[in-house]
C-alpha cells in the first residue's frame, strides 16, 4: 500500500491532482466504450491463416524431432 502510494506520482505529471477527481460516471462511460471497442475485435472471426501457420510450425517441429530421434538410434 505505502509502496504503491509512493509510486503513484509520476514526476513529469502536473495533471495528476486533476486526473484523480474525474467523475465516476464519466469514467464508467469511457470504460464501457473501451470494452465495446475491444470486444468487438475479440469477437470477430479469427482468420484461418493463423491456425494454418501454427499447424505448419507444429508439423515442422515434429518432423525435426522425428529426424533427430531417428538419428540417435
Amino acid at each position, binding site marked *: 500500500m505505502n509502496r*504503491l502510494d*509512493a*509510486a*503513484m*506520482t*509520476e514526476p513529469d*505529471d502536473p*495533471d*495528476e491532482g*486533476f*486526473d*484523480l477527481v*474525474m*467523475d465516476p*460516471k*464519466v*469514467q464508467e*462511460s*469511457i*470504460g*464501457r*466504450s*473501451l*470494452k*465495446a*471497442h*475491444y*470486444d*468487438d*475485435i*475479440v*469477437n*470477430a472471426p*479469427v*482468420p484461418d*491463416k*493463423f*491456425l494454418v*501457420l*501454427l499447424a505448419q*510450425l*507444429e508439423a515442422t*517441429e*515434429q518432423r525435426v*524431432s*522425428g529426424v533427430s*530421434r531417428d538419428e*540417435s*538410434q
Partner: protein
Amino acid sequence: MSPSDTALAGRTETLAQERRTEDFKDGLIREIPNLRAFAASLSGSIQLADDLVQDTLLKAWGNSDKFEPGTSLRAWLFTILRNTYYSLYRKRGREVQDSEGTYAERMATHGNQESHLDLADFRKALAKLPEEQREVLIMVGATGLSYEEAAEICGVAIGTIKSRVNRARTKLAELLSIGSVDDLGPSHTNAAAMQRVGPESVGS
C-alpha cells in the same frame, strides 16, 4: 539399459515434448483474438494488426522455451507484440493511417448499425491519444491485465501506468465532450451514444 529401453525412454520423452508443443499451440490459439484487438488498438489498422499478430506468433513460437509455464501467457505475448510494434510497425502504422484513414472509419463491426456509428466515434477519439496512453488504457481497461502486468509489459513503474491511464481517460472525456456531470445528462447525444454502445456489444 537395453537398446529397447533406451528407445522407449526416447519415445516417452518425444511424446512429452509433443504434448508441451500442443499445449503451447493451444495457448497461442486462445490468445489470438486478444492479440488482434490489442494490435489493432496500437496500430490503428486491422490489416497491420494481422501482420503484427503473425510476427508475434512466429516470435513466440521460436522463443517458446523462454516462456515460464504458470505465468500469464497473455502478458508474455503482449510484451512480444508491443516490442515488435515499436521496433518495426510504428512508422508503417502512421503511413497507413495517413493514406487510408484509421480503422475507425473502415473496419466492419459486428454490432448493430446504430452502435457501429458510436463505436466509430469512440475509435476516432481513441486513435488521437498518445500511444503511451492508449496502450495502457487498453491493457488496463479492456484486456483484463493488472496494473502490475501492464507496468511489467511497458517496463515502467505502476505509478506511471496509473497516471497514464488517468490522463488517457481525461483526454478521451475531453475529445468526446463528456467532461462534466452535466454532459452525461440524457439530452447529450455523445453521452447517450456511449450509453448505447456498452450493453449491446459487451460480452456478446
